[in-house]
């Protein structure tokens, strides 16, 4: 017997902590007592992400959205809404009359332009893309716009490069358009490599045609007839979907010769990278496509003027391109109406780390970190305290709690010592050690440095070793001084962005979390207990009841003690894994 109404109770961590379990059982009981059990189903759901307003209850199919529901409201919801069809107005978001989801600001925190088709269409079926206005932008451009018109719309839109640096897209296009050459190229940079970033992969996997269509538009605007997508070989599914998409687009004449009978030729080929982070740097990327070792060369000349095989080349990243068809269809002015003064449109973030709802989100520029992390992201896992957010990956920086309400755009993040970057957004909580985290980022850049220029190649490793010293208790005040010296040399004298920005995470964390470094160096102590060399676990004899749990959990069997007698950790054998600390229910294991 199918149900006709459904009551969804958020059972996410945050709502759970405010009695959603109790609400669930009271709703279930009320449904039963009202004799509605054949008609109404009460279900527990994953986090809605609207945690600040939790606990949240949603009624389907009418999509009524109740917020800050208390257990004692359960009876009223069932009796009034479910039995009599009268929504409980005092529990509606924003009071009476704001029932529909589409009206709730929370649901407008996200705004999908880039991800408009991701998770909606079948990426391997071009007809589904076409059904959602796919290739209409290209058709419009080819039949009713001059290249100048196209660039003008992109200029009006205010679109800036989403790969990290935020260079105005129309400028790049204009340079290439004006460069004197019979052969020009369009490259899509899909060499996504920041740890924790997967926006481009998801876009290509979920909506490959949007990028192909945009490349053809770019080709038309700048006078190029060949495009390349430089994509890392570690993205086999994205590559597969692109191959399918290319085949289908060529079959329908949406790529290739004489597109849509307009006489415009444009085709795209894939070039696979071997997964070197530095190949996201455009000159290294070009070297790699040309078959050389992926090492950057100095700019100028910029690729827009002299790029692939010496020809003018537009290089845009996946997300930048995915915006283009929408800008054409809805107009640059529409796009420019979204976002902040200097940063228009939306930004896709890969929200990861200690956040409940990790995932791929797209928000208008100017959204605050607090909205992203606490509203969309559902807050910090396990009810822990927020410590910092990391944006821009290994080229970015950490942002402390005091700046959570800064509307984020290119400029505001730069002012905070971080960068927008490609969109990795990693959330840290109180258990994360800031020195350790930055060591991780630095290790990444050190690994991924191409090794060409001395400041990056040697400076990165030197800085990493200095951080290692600090996390292992060998830090001195001189270490911080040396870090600043190396960082300055790297920022000023590295050849490409990788080296120039590699010190950013460390520098920004020194700004906001200098005290934590000081504690590591002066007190040889790691407040979050991450830096094993600085941590000692001991058992407090007066608190230990001899339950033996810690001894059983210890992976190296270094805890001794008779049952019901205080236990002792053999520090010479302890590997400081912290298992005993986590296991003890009596607070007898002390971390110092």
């Amino acid at each position, binding site marked *: 017997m199918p149900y006709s109404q459904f009551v969804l109770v958020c059972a996410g961590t945050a709502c759970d902590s405010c009695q959603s379990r109790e609400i669930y059982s009271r709703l279930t009981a009320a449904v039963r007592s009202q004799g509605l059990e054949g008609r109404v189903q009460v279900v527990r759901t994953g986090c809605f992400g609207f945690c600040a307003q939790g606990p949240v209850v949603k009624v389907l199919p009418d999509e009524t959205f109740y917020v800050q529901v208390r257990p004692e409201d359960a009876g009223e919801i069932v009796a009034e809404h479910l039995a009599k069809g009268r929504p409980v107005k005092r529990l509606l978001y924003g009071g009476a009359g704001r029932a529909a989801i589409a009206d709730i600001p929370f649901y407008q925190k996200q705004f999908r332009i880039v991800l408009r088709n991701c998770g909606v269409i079948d990426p391997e079926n071009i007809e589904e893309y076409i059904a959602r206005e796919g290739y209409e932008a290209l058709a419009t451009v080819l039949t009713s716009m001059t290249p100048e018109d196209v660039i003008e719309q992109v200029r009006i839109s205010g679109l800036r490069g989403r790969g990290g640096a935020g260079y105005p897209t129309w400028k790049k296009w204009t340079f290439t358009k004006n460069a004197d050459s019979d052969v020009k190229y369009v490259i899509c940079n899909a060499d996504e490599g920041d740890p924790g970033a997967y926006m481009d992969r998801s876009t290509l996997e979920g909506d490959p045609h949007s990028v192909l269509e945009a490349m053809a538009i770019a080709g038309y605007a700048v006078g190029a007839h060949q495009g390349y997508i430089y994509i890392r070989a570690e993205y086999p599914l994205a590559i597969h979907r692109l191959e399918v998409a290319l085949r289908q687009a060529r079959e329908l004449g949406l790529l290739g010769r004489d597109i849509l009978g307009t006489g415009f030729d444009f085709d795209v080929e894939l070039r696979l990278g071997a997964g070197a982070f530095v190949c996201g740097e455009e000159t290294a990327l070009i070297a790699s496509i040309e078959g050389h070792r992926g090492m950057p060369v100095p700019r100028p000349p910029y690729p827009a003027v002299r790029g692939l095989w010496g020809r003018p080349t537009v290089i845009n990243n996946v997300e930048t391109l995915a915006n283009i068809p929408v800008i054409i269809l809805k107009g640059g002015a529409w796009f420019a109406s979204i976002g902040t003064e200097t940063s228009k449109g939306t930004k896709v973030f890969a929200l990861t780390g200690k956040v409940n709802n990790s995932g791929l989100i797209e928000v208008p520029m100017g959204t605050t970190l607090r909205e992203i992390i606490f509203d969309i992201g559902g807050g910090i896992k396990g009810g822990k305290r927020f410590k910092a957010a990391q944006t821009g990956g290994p080229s970015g920086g950490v942002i402390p709690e005091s700046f959570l309400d800064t509307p984020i755009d290119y400029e505001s993040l730069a002012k905070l010592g971080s960068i927008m970057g490609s969109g990795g957004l990693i959330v840290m909580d109180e258990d994360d050690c800031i020195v350790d985290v930055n060591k991780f980022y630095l290790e990444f850049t050190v690994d991924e440095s191409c090794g060409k220029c*001395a400041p990056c190649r040697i400076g990165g490793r030197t800085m990493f070793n200095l951080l290692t010293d600090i996390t292992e208790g060998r830090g001195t005040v001189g270490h911080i001084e040396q870090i600043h010296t190396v960082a300055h040399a790297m920022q000023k*004298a590295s050849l490409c962005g990788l080296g120039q920005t590699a010190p950013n995470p460390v520098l920004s964390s020194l700004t906001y979390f200098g005290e934590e470094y000081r504690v590591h160096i002066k007190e040889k102590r790691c407040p979050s207990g991450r830096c094993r060399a600085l941590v000692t676990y001991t058992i407090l004899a007066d608190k230990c009841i001899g339950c033996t749990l810690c001894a059983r959990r210890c992976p190296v069997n270094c805890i001794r003690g008779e049952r019901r007698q205080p236990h002792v950790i053999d520090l010479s054998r302890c590997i400081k894994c912290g298992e005993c600390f986590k296991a003890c229910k009596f607070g007898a294991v002390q971390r110092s």
Partner: protein
Amino acid sequence: MTTARTIPTVKAEINGLECEVPEGTTILQAAERIGIRIPRLCYHPDLPAWAACGICVVKVEGSPKMLRACATPVEDGMRITTHDPEIVRVRKSVLQLLLSTHPNDCLRCPRNGNCELQRLAADFGIREVPFASRVASLPTDDSTRAVVLNPEKCVKCGRCAIVCQRMQNVWALEFVGRGDSTRLAPTGDIQLAESPCIRCGQCSAHCPVGAIYEHDETDRVWRALQNPDLHCVVQIAPAVRVAIGEAFGYEPGTVLTGKTYAALRRLGFQAVFDTNFGADLTIMEEATEFVHRFLHGAGPLPLITSCCPAWTDYMEKYAPDFIENFSTAKSPHAMLAAMAKTYYAQVKGLDPAKIYMVSVMPCTAKKFEIIRSREMFDGERPYVNVSITTRELARMIKECGIDFMELPDEEADSILGYYTGAGTIFGATGGVMEAALRTAHYLITKREAPDINFLPLRGLDGVKEATIEIAGRTLRVAAAHWMNNIETVLDRVRETRRRGEEPAYHFIEVMACRGGCVGGGGQPYGADDEVRRRRASGIYQDDAMSQKRCSHQNPYIQKLYAEFLGAPLSARAHELLHTHYRRRPVYAR
């Protein structure tokens, strides 16, 4: 359109001074015009800027980062600052970072006293390196016995790889690994001797530090000189005399033939010969070979010179379709050595086995050439027992404390010492061709050429072409130097070959090193085009001052043929003075 080319200029301000330079001039070059030599490490004027080291950074108004002066062209209206306390601090930090990964063993380094990194450290007054020392432990590769790679000392300036790949088109060297573990290694991380390396040594000549250097054989020379049973003889190559002085404070290009002879005698050599005599002999054989092919079709054209061992090595690996075009004449030092152990031994009544021949060459590839095939051997012993570079000879002279500047000018020993101007110009690009043409003209017409100065063949252009009228026939010749230029010339020949036409050229000269032997891989450090030009002008000056300027006029050569060889290309000449070439795979197993 007018033929006069006007290069547009740009105006900029460097340290507040107005400066107008041709478009495309880099900041580094522009600064030199106003008397500022911006410190640099990886930059070398021969090569496109690789922009690796980060020492030459400068500030340009409007740019948040510092820009590399070596790679940044001056733009109109730029305001450039080449030094301020912050720039100096950054340069110093980068230098200290480099030093933290560099072995601290300058006193035992082949570049001690002549190292660009050492000089920078001195210029910047580095007294301490705050950063912990991290020197990678990497094995030295001496597999070629000609050029030694010591990757521990490498500063990753990239010069050697660019030289090997772009200047020489050999592709034996490459970066391997990445990040901090980047190192220079033979491509594919194999032994250098297994790589396509042609041993030209240009990598060593361009290395700023002691990471690539010649395989030192001065010990072997000392041991031979010490052996009372041996009759030690020596010969010096044309290009040595105009460069060795640089090690003793002379300007490049100073002709120091007499002092070098004197120094060699003081080192203990019993007879001092001159490779220029061998060059005259080479011309007799090669020009005769050419005339036979040109007039009588006794072999394919073009004839291609083979005195450069790096070039023959390259040809065998990369252009074996030209094996038949190669002159079979051995190189001058090999010819001279063969004559020393036969003719000279016979005249002097010496046991050839007791003659120990040392050749002093501007070249590291000669170390390989002397053992490259059976034809280089007299039984079990190579005709040239050991070949050392100009740099090694300079060190031997210094080891003995010989005051080179104060030495008298001495003469070479008879009967293999007298040379003509044609022999001496072998040391510069175009010289072998010019010398050969002087004699070929005579052989074809039985008259001396009206003007024996073939000026279009001189100078540092990568490919030089000339047409010469001899006896009513037009002779097309080309001279190419620094290997990357040779493919252009070969392709032209291949093209005419493919079409079944007359060959594009009749005679081609190739020298592997930039500028020819004067810019050889074994020459004193610091060569750039200016140095090469001055060395070459020394060579042509030596030629101009010679009483006889054509090989066939050399009375000792005439005597040699009369008394011993018979005629050019005689059976005996073939046996002693010629060699053969074979296809060799690029990657030897």
